[in-house]
């Protein structure tokens, strides 16, 4: 009965609080209570304690205060007979456990013990999950490619079962965290023994060897409501409701349960995350704390994933093309090393290209895969290297020439999501590898075509009625077709270049993030892509054609009210409605007055530096200090959650080189600082834009972290470099 669980959770919390206390007092004795601590790359202190209580833990002394909160939540075990109620007490103990675990893990960092290293294999666990990773994953959290999260605790009965559970989770696009042990073994070790790729790229993230490390996953979850939900620290009711309603996480506990597992589970139940066990545990079926069952059991490991997903109320639709290998975004990140490669195409080794073009309905045959080249089977069987031209021809009543590039960009994902098949690059610089394992499983050249046809249909279901795929494998054919393709690329680029905000009547909104950031609305124009960098205007247009009631809606521009700041009547009308009244009006081309809001998954943050009379840009991957005196993670905390914050704005990388970038504030000449890596990434485009703006060497005048990380030195640098921003009108 649930009393067993409650008793264990209450005991576990008491144990952990005592353990944390002991470690903390020792650390304070050694290092003093003013010893400063922060988890790597987070703006949220000890995130669970911060979100629940609003208390910022910055020092060991602060930890002592926070541990006091945990102690207040401890209770006595219910008695054998005539017991007093225990559910509320067990859940309190769960929260106490999370607080104690957060402090324990922080202290392990202080003592240099995190991230853990597996003593046998040398494998280094992930440890604390940074804000950057959280934001990197932002778009996947909302576009359906990462619909849920599993925490697997313990070890499966056999290595093969561990692999099959994780593979199933991968195929269902679930992000999986691993922690804890059972009988001295763990799923992490089981997967390592089986040679399974682990890490963020394959969506299987080992956090640490102990149950306590599960807290890292919960710390990750709670930051969703801080970052994307814009919930105030300390407003625990709202945070926890958000977690229950929007963060689709669940636990699968493999192997025998103990007090710590139960108490950590009780902590997770506070967040609405249920647990499914593979042992004969008591179950808790009544609903209300979780959406459905809180604790359940399933002995059949082939059913455990499906059951856990349903228990969490998660709907997953997976389109799997008829190919002999596993398929899904979780396999996208797989690398195929040279020695594992069976055959490769392109990559400067052989001529190759990929090209999508629109055809008339009668010109192509649906789902047909044509391989042009004699004896292709024999030549494929030999492996090694081969030329490859991929031509995808699409027809449909709603198909438009503009969608060619949108469909073509998905080729990368179509191929990469197949396990054992790898793709990078695009157009005529693509590179594909098929691994020995995939070949062994029966993957042929034809499958490369089949998956394109299937996935193009799936992704563009109401645009594309017919898809035909042709693969060219003779060098002569490839080179010939390549000429045609290049002409098409060029024509396309010119068309995109001429696509301006003024040239269209309709912008598109992007509401995908409303599943996590309910108040935020992106407005995507031809010259301003979504702040996540993943959706441009054409994507929006195509997405609307695919699903007229979906996350991208047309926004008729209406009348232009302010050409300089980019204010349109239609945009304002739409925003009022779509943001639920949170945003009244929007200026597309300025940071200073009613700028665009952010969900939290922006690629870059712009922030004004008044003393430099300009703006700095910091991209998500940059973890160093900025002249603002804040790191990316801290700055990001000021912009998320769908609120307009003049002087701060989240943008996509490609927007920096748009002609509409801060058009109303003076354009790219306002940029005074950005990280070197970002400079390098956009250099080519930027130089072109700089020339157009009349300052050809602007990029060199812009400071970066190698020049300065504070505003005083920044101004010095700008002055000596003769940066134009200093001469411009005051930005404020």
């Amino acid at each position, binding site marked *: 009965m649930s009393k067993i669980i409650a008793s264990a959770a209450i005991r576990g919390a008491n144990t952990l609080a005592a353990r944390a206390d002991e470690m903390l007092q020792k650390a304070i004795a050694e290092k003093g209570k003013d010893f400063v601590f922060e988890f790597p790359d987070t703006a949220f202190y000890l995130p669970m304690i911060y979100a629940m209580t609003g208390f910022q833990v910055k020092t060991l002394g602060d930890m002592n205060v926070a541990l006091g909160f945990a102690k207040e939540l401890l209770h006595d075990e219910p008695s054998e007979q005539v017991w007093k109620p225990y559910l509320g007490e067990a859940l309190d103990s769960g929260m106490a456990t999370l607080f104690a675990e957060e402090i324990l893990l922080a202290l392990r960092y202080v003592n240099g013990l995190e991230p853990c290293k597996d003593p046998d294999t040398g494998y280094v666990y992930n440890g604390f999950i940074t804000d950057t990773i959280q934001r990197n994953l932002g778009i996947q959290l*909302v576009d359906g490619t990462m619909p849920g999260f599993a925490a697997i605790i313990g070890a499966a009965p056999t290595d093969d079962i561990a692999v099959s559970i994780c593979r199933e989770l991968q195929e269902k696009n679930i992000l999986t965290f691993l922690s804890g042990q059972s009988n001295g073994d763990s799923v992490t070790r089981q997967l390592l023994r089986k040679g399974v790729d682990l890490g963020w790229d394959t969506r299987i993230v080992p956090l640490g060897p102990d149950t306590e490390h599960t807290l890292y996953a919960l710390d990750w979850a709670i930051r969703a409501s801080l970052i994307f939900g814009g919930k105030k620290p300390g407003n625990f009711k709202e945070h926890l409701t958000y977690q229950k309603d929007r963060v689709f996480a669940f636990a699968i506990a493999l192997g025998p349960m103990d007090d710590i597992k139960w108490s950590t589970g009780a902590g997770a139940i506070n967040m609405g995350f249920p647990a499914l066990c593979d042992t004969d545990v008591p179950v808790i079926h009544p609903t209300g704390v979780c959406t459905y069952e809180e604790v359940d059991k399933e002995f059949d490991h082939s059913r455990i994933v499906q059951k856990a997903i349903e228990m969490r109320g998660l709907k997953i639709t997976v389109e799997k093309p008829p190919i002999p290998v596993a398929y899904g975004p979780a396999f996208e990140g797989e690398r195929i090393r040279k020695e594992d490669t069976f055959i490769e195409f392109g990559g400067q080794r052989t001529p190759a290209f990929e090209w999508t073009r629109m055809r008339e309905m009668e010109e192509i045959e649906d789902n047909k895969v044509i391989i042009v080249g004699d004896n292709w089977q024999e030549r494929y069987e030999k492996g090694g290297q081969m030329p490859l031209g991929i031509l995808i021809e699409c027809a449909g009543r709603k198909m438009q020439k503009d969608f060619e590039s949108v469909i073509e960009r998905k080729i990368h994902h179509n191929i990469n999501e197949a396990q054992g098949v790898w793709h990078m690059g695009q157009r005529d610089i693509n590179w594909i590898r098929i691994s020995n394992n995939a070949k062994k499983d029966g993957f042929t050249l034809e499958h490369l075509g089949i998956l394109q046809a299937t996935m193009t249909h799936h992704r563009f279901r109401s645009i594309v009625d017919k898809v035909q795929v042709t693969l060219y494998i003779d060098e002569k054919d490839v080179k010939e077709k390549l000429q045609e393709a290049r002409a098409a690329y060029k024509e396309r680029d010119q068309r995109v270049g001429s696509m301006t905000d003024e040239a269209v009547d309709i912008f598109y909104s992007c509401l995908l993030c409303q599943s996590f950031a309910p108040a935020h609305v992106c407005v995507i124009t031809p010259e301003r892509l979504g702040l996540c960098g993943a959706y441009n205007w054409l994507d929006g247009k195509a997405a609307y054609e695919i699903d007229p009631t979906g996350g991208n809606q047309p926004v008729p521009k209406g009348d232009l009210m302010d050409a300089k700041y980019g204010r349109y009547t239609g945009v304002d009308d739409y925003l009022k409605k779509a943001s639920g009244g949170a945003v009244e009006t929007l200026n597309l081309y300025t940071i200073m007055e009613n700028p665009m809001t952010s969900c939290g998954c922006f690629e870059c943050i712009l922030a004004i530096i008044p003393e430099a009379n300009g703006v700095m840009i910091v991209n998500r991957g940059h973890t160093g200090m900025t002249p603002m005196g804040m790191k990316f993670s801290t700055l990001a905390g000021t912009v998320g959650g769908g609120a307009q914050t003049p002087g701060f704005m989240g943008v996509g990388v490609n927007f920096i080189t748009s002609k509409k970038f801060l058009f109303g504030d003076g354009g790219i000449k306002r940029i005074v600082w950005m990280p070197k890596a970002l400079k390098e990434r956009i250099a080519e485009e930027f130089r072109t834009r700089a020339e157009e703006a009349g300052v050809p060497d602007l990029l060199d005048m812009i400071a970066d972290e190698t020049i300065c990380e504070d505003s005083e030195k920044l101004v010095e640098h700008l002055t000596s470099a003769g940066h134009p921003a200093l001469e411009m009108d005051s930005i404020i």
Partner: protein
Amino acid sequence: MEKRIHTATPAAERIVEWAEEQKIETCFDRAEKLKQCPIGKEGACCKVCHMGPCRLVGKNAEAEARGVCGATLPTVAARNMLRMIAAGTAAHSDHARGMVETLLAVAEGQAKDFKITDIRKLYRVAGILEIEFEGRPVNDVARDVALKFLEDFGRQRGGEIYYTKRAPQKTQDRWRKWGIVPRSIDREVVEAMHRTNIGVDHEPDHVLLHGLRTALADGWGGCMISTDITDILFGTPQPVKAEASFGIFKEDEVNLVVHGHEPLLAEMIVDVVSEPEMIAYAQTKGAKGINLGGMCCTANEILMRHAIPTAGGFTNQELGIMTGLIDALTVDVQCIMPAITEVAKKFHTKIITTNYRAKIQGAEHIEFEEHHARDIARRIVRLAIDNFPNRKTKGSHITDKFPVIAGFSHEYIEYMQGGRWRGSFRPLNDAIMAGRIRGVVGLAGCDNPRVQSTGLHRFLAMELIKNDVLIVSTGCGSAACGTAGYLTPEMSLENAGPGLREVCEAIGIPPILHLGACVDNSRILTIASAMAAEGGLSDEIGGMPAVGIAPEWMSEKAIAIGCYFAASGVPCIFGGESPVEASSEVTKIMTDVWFERFRGALHFEPDPEKMLAMALDYIDKARETLKLKKYEPGKFGTEKVLMDMAARREIEKAAKPHVGIF
């Protein structure tokens, strides 16, 4: 002749039998000897003026019978009912006034023996009353709270009692539509007396509407104020483990019993009996210590807060004395049988009246007064100790006792469903929606020697939980269940239906939740309001799958309670013959008409099987109207709605505001 069973509590029955042998008369004997007046019991007797009493009887009395003044039977029955409501309201509310006065005295530093125990609750109440509390001294806030509550008693110019707004908006709308929002407590009682005076209000429906207004002044006024202030002064109850029945008395300790309804003196006695000097004094008299017990609702108050054991409810008061073990019995107000002084004469027990309002011939009077609370409590405890050596061997020594889990305040019920962080009524609402819990019954009211005392409570409690109905109990209903051994979590494992059992097991609760004294029926009102606010069931109190039952009621206070539940939207079923039996028109108003207007009703039904059927029928009909899953025992579980990304984007943007407990 078949042996008559007087009470369904075996321990009590053994004492009654012993008393018969000893020729000591009890309420059971008197109930048997003294038949109810057949005219008065069904509401057909009018004695509001001295032209009467008039008996409105005879063939076709409903249409034809008239009093001397011409009053019809429906008029007379309705007026009698209103007078009962007024008396009940007066009782609870005068008690509440005492609580407010004490709070004020504490705030002003004049009642130094008391303090404010639950500051969080004080702030919550202040918040509801729109009194600023942040950054202010606690006593200033308490004073403002007390002064605002005092307004609720004597407000003279229109207005509404403050707690009206705690009801769901739709419930308030119904009250406003029918003009029954109470203006102030005393005023409604005074007006009730005025209207029923000779020659004033004669239209039965009009008379009874004022009955509902007066009753609302009781429920959302007196009772609720009393509950909240008692929590502020002495702590909001949380579950405690205690004991019930006559076995709580100890042979080798001084047994002091507090009986009645007020917690003030009792709280002080709780404190004083653990003073080392007192214990030492008891030891000088040959006792091992001092054992404090309770009876009736004073017992419930200190049981809920301090785990003080209870000897049971109303019909146990004479029997308790007959154990021969009670050295002193203090009484305050309400439900005190004057017979106890007679019984006590045959034993050594001292009866002490303590309230300025209530004296009994043959009792010693030590008047409680909050400014000198501790001194008075000490005097009483000393008196009990001094009486210990006088204890004789005579008595029906009973050792039966049962463990009890009690202390389910609104706040704790919210807490127990999710703890400090997730506390809410979602799980309860979910359980009702999924059919795990069929519905909720408030099992309350007195125990009564005219039936097999506590027997109806026991029967209904057992049958309801078997039928997956969660019970919340108060007053002597709680005492009846406690002395039956029903208030344990094991009860749910052994006797609850499969769905209720799952819920009880998940939370760790008994299937019957002891909410406190009869004045704490107000907790049921705020719980029902919270359930409405939580969503998924009815958006008002009316229409919930919930019923109130007082199977053995006898006090006018029970009538006031039944009427405030009816007006708030809860159908109530009372046991025994109807006090308005004589008039079918009045009966119809109190059932059909009230149900149509307020979704509540007040039925009288002596047959326990029929009470049960009627309650389940109300619950099932409410489920049907709310389009909930049809109740089927053992078949529950929500159909899962699996969420894809599009569905997640549609999650209602503004989460429903929810008043948390902390």
